[in-house]
């Protein structure tokens, strides 16, 4: 079954937010351990958006960002995306690799790209495993792929998957911030249309 996003009730929205909370909470803990640093997160947002607005959602369609994208398969299908602003990505990579912040904050070399992918792997893995524990569903993440480009072009990738069935897209978004309230990145969970029913049924929200 699929959902009509036009009239999602507050209860369902709260459940979806809680999924974002638990999943991203685990991912934030994993990130904090990796960085040896406090990582906070904002209250998750559940957004239903028309495609027209989607490309603007991460601070402008042309903003250069790092996107880590992977698919989930198994009982639940969908897309998972972690988006970081370029500077935040450099900061994270430098902390991970024990480098000082250098002025040369342009591109990423091969090792840095690989470190970012690993970051995506760990974050998505912890998000998925908590989601799986919560729902009892079998969820397998794929290996993450990385792209560094305009935010609009990157966000459109999960949106296109959604566009095959619907005219709007539902994102569960959780923003990560470090101790000093600087944004680190946004985590998006975008289950495929049919998977919402599976997800809500597994949680006993719908029968």
């Amino acid at each position, binding site marked *: 079954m699929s959902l009509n996003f036009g009239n999602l009730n507050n209860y369902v929205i709260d459940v979806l937010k809680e999924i974002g909370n638990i999943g991203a909470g685990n991912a934030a803990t994993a990130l904090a351990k990796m960085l040896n640093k406090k990582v906070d997160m904002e209250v998750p947002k559940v957004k239903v958006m*028309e*495609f*027209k*607005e*989607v*490309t*603007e959602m991460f601070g*402008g*369609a*042309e903003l*250069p960002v790092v*996107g880590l*994208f992977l*698919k989930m398969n198994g009982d639940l299908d969908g897309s998972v995306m972690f988006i970081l602003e370029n500077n935040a990505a450099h900061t994270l990579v430098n902390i991970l690799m024990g480098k000082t912040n250098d002025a040369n904050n342009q*591109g990423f070399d091969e090792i840095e790209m690989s470190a970012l992918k690993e970051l995506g792997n760990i974050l998505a893995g912890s998000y998925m495993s908590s989601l799986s524990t919560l729902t009892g569903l079998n969820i397998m993440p*794929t290996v993450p*792929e*990385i*792209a*560094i*480009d*305009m*935010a*609009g*072009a*990157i*966000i*459109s*990738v999960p*949106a*296109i*998957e959604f*566009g*095959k*069935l*619907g*005219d709007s897209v539902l994102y569960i978004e959780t923003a990560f911030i470090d101790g000093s309230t600087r944004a680190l990145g946004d985590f998006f969970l975008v289950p495929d249309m049919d998977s919402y029913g599976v997800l809500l049924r597994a949680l006993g929200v719908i029968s």
Partner: protein
Amino acid sequence: MGTIIKVGMADMHAARHPAILTTLGLGSCVGIALYDRSTRTVGLAHCMLPDSTQSKNVSNIAKFVDTALEGLVSEMLKLGANKTRIVAKLAGGSQMFNFAHSADLMRIGYRNATMAKEKLEMMRIPLVSEDTGGSYGRTIELDSSTGMLLIKTIGYGIKEI
């Protein structure tokens, strides 16, 4: 310089001179720019998927290449464009992520661009230039005074086609 009109994802717009139509951050989506030099009428569509006949839900015609092209041409004709004078330019249709395991996701950009070319040929609209493919995003601007399509990228330069 005319007014700048923003075209979002799964969106399209037609306008008379003077106008600049722009769409930001095209990834696998394809941007279809149409221009009639005789009346300086412009049209721009930002399409996500190639084929409306593959989908059960076609309430937004701008989402699909085939339906958007037909809709955009008829909007331009309403603004006074001359059907036989319309020419087309294409941009976008790239592959943002390099997926080894998902053939479907991987080819969506290519399929969008290919469908646009097929549909243009079917509608007898000449394709004068294109900048499609690759693995990067594009922002495009269509200027009604010249029909020039400006393409901006991050790290792959700026060009006019």
